[in-house]
């Protein structure tokens, strides 16, 4: 990459942001040790609920979307150009 790239697009800064992101995730994942979480339904009381539930639900949603995509995706001129159904 060229040096003229803006700071955000440089590989070195992207690496740095990944490290910061990873650090944040670890802190948040372990935060339940210090914070008493709600436990209304029995499940959210499990350690790191937000972390694993957030990860899993996003992951599962992408899988479902991809399966649906295999069935329902069409080229974007399927209904004609501009979607004008011509």
């Amino acid at each position, binding site marked *: 990459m060229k040096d003229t790239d803006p700071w955000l697009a440089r590989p070195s800064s992207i690496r740095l942001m990944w490290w910061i992101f990873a650090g944040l995730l670890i802190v948040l994942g372990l935060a*339940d040790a210090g914070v008493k979480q709600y436990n209304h339904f029995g499940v959210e009381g499990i350690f790191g609920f937000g972390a694993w539930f957030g990860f899993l639900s996003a992951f599962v949603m992408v899988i479902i979307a991809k399966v649906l995509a295999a069935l329902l995706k069409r080229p974007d001129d399927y*209904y*004609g150009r501009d979607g004008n159904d011509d």
Partner: protein
Amino acid sequence: MIETVFPPGLILFLGAFLLPVLSGHIRSVVALALPLIALFLVWSVPDGAALTIHWFGYELVPVQGDALARLFGTVFTLMAFAGGLFALHRDNRFELAAAYAYAGASVGVVFAGDLLTVFVFWELMALASTFVIWCAGPSAWGASLRYAIIHLIGGVVLMAGIAAHVVATGSVAFTAMELGSIGTWLILIGFLINVGAPPVSAWVPDAYPSASWSGAVFLSAFTTKTAVLVLMRGFPGTEMLIWVGLYMIFYGIIYAILENDMRRILCYSIVNQVGFMVVGIGIGTEMAMNGVAAHAFAHIVYKALLLMSAGSVLYATGKSKTTELGGLFRSMPVTTICGIVGALSISAFPLTSGFVAKSMILQGAIDAHMALVFFGLTTASACAFLYVGLNFPWFTFFDRDSGLRPKDPPANMTIAMWLLVALCIGIGVAPGLFYELMPYPVDYKPYTTAHVVLQLQLLLFSGLVFFLLLKQLRHTPTITLDFDWFWRGLGRALGREFDGLSVTAWERLTGRMLEAARRFVAGIYRHHGPQGILARGWPTGLMTLWATLLLAAWLIAYYV
């Protein structure tokens, strides 16, 4: 004692007709003043019936004030102001007028105290919003027709329901209804069509992105949220709405993940967010209804901000498909920052309006001990960051560099965006005043350590999924089939088939008629043509002979 007030929506609706004939600075001043006058009038409406009309034995209440009406009236007029500022230099003289008429009609629905007033303004909204879409030019023609047809059908269903309800109860008053009679079912269906419920959710991502860069900002605000308001008034605590809302939530997420067009992504997320509100109405407790009202307000603001950001990109590049965009943060920093604030708000990050609003709906589910609903909403809250909070800004402003270097839009557009940024963050940081606008007293503390940690966990780990699966999530130049296939695909195929069959039938019919005509002419020709038996020249001698014979026959007969 009833005080007489000027209907707040009417000033916007009537003032809109001035805009096409004005120009220059006068037009700008009028365009910015109208929504502010309307906002002032919204706050001057007292609680209770403020205007009544007797009409054919019914008591109509065109203006009736309460906290809910003030809240929606405030955000609708604020939105008209911000949208008007954003669209000030749009080169179509009719679009802003149509948009203001549309906003005025929505405010009319908000303050309507009877079902007939609701219906009248409901139809005016449908008409005015169709005009807004038309103003985008010929490319919007097909989508605007589909939009108009769906909303006119919805209007007919609503009118039929209102008529049946009025006959059954003898009253036109707009109060909470129990599902059971045909009238209330039809009214509910009419409302649900506008809210973007299945199976017609597709009208939202079909129609709105066909509007211009400025028109879509207005469209995103009014129709679905007006429908939310009338559902709040008419059907609070109707359990069916919980399931309708959950469908809308997951429909919005999945379709937005697969979508390529940035404005269509945002429209799918309208369906998702309105789904949250519909679930809240289905729960129906005071906490949930406060959540719905707060979420509607917050949503209108950040969704308009997102569509302004996307509209600025469309304005500057003429492109809307994310496969053709990317890397725009280099030359459009303001648009990028505003888009990101909108994205963080819609994801409900702490310190944004989404956080203080949406969590009240979840609290409503917790208080009502609805575990399934709670986990459904929590899943959706986590996914919000992935499917729109990152999906829109990442592929538009970051990701692969498209090489495009457009500039940030003109000042009026950026000021409008900053205004909404201030609202998003202001409400998120200091929700106290905001909570005072709610229909019921708010007893809720959004900022507890546990809540903030939980929300950040959900969001950031769903963000992790986004970046881990980035390759799989990259957009393709495709669309995803929806129920609208039945009218756009199957309907068209049937139409063509019918077309083909009817052409064949027509050809055979005309062929037969031609054949019959040909035969008729040929018959005449055979008898009367040059060689026809009736057209031959007859020799004079023959006639003399016949005349002689006839005379002879007469002579004989005379003597006999």
